[in-house]
């Protein structure tokens, strides 16, 4: 659903006033662009729906209505992502790989600590150093983290099908220094069992 600039600007103005608590009548270009990004991100959320399906509306929502609807969906997504993360933690195993451990156990909590759903929802914050098997470059913000954790969840479930010692053996044969590598650890295991 496309909105013209004239429709988006009042929403950005509203958000800017909220950002400054009405104590400032101007912001920098950089901040204004960030807030425009926040508005567009939420509007996209409202048209994409929580599960990614395209929603259709009998009547077009105003930009402000779409923004507010998208913001509510965004908050739900943050909550669901947190729930997903906590469920993964119950069975998470880094198989001694430092990159996987640092990204999931240290990085993700930092994301939740600093994520600003209102004024910068499009910011992914983390570099997500541990690579998953899908291309993450098209995703931003909470969407990126949700999809990333879904990938981690699938990997963990797969690896759990095999004995831990077997997985570590396979990884050591793949690369004796696998504990320090920044490669995906699931791929070598899948490759081993598929041959």
């Amino acid at each position: 659903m496309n909105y013209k600039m004239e429709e988006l600007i009042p929403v950005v103005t509203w958000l800017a006033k909220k950002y400054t608590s009405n104590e400032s009548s101007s912001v920098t270009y950089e901040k204004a662009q960030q807030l425009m990004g926040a508005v567009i991100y939420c509007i996209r959320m409202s048209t994409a729906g929580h599960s990614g399906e395209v929603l259709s509306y009998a009547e077009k929502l105003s930009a402000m209505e779409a923004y507010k609807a998208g913001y509510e969906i965004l908050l739900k997504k943050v909550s669901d992502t947190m729930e997903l993360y906590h469920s993964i933690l119950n069975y998470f195993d880094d198989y001694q790989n430092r990159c996987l451990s640092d990204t999931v156990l240290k990085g993700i909590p930092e994301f939740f600590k600093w994520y600003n759903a209102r004024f910068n929802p499009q910011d992914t914050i983390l570099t997500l150093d541990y690579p998953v098997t899908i291309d993450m470059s098209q995703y931003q913000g909470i969407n990126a983290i949700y999809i990333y954790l879904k990938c981690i969840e699938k990997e963990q479930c797969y690896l759990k099908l095999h004995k831990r010692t077997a997985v570590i053996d396979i990884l050591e044969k793949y690369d004796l220094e696998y504990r320090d590598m920044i490669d995906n650890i699931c791929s070598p295991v899948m490759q081993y069992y598929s041959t």
Partner: protein
Amino acid sequence: MNENWLDVLSNQTRIAEITKCNEYSEKFGLILSDTDIKLIVAERKRALRKQQRVEFGSGIIPKLIFAFCDSDFIEQEHYTDILIQLQDIFYLYKNEMMDEITDDELIHFMKEQFENVCYGDLDYLSGTCLEIFSQAIRAGYSEHQDSEGYSSFRHLDIVPRWNYELYLEALKNQF
């Protein structure tokens, strides 16, 4: 995205609100004509672009008018010019202070210094008082928040000023 939307946002100017300020400022003998207002609005656009800022709503001019129109150092002859310079200074120092100060705090500070320290000298206001104050803000100074910008400079003022003894000494040295 087309960056012109930043200009569109800043172009929203409520000329009527600036005109309305005349009702208050004329008590102090200061009035803006339509031409003056158009000039101020054009200068506002230039200043915002220069400082890479976007303004929403009626902007800062009405607040500057209300704060400064009772000044002992502003007369009708230079009123428009001074407002334009104050506007420039305001946007510059919002950036210099990294938006760590509200509009009201900055305007209160500017007015107080303009009257009591700079005696109407805008170069001194911008080049000394605000320069020192902005350095303090960037270094983490925040006591201005309690006083809304008033009486914030005396703790930071490092410029030696005239006092009675210094004046007498200077007078003696003359003769």
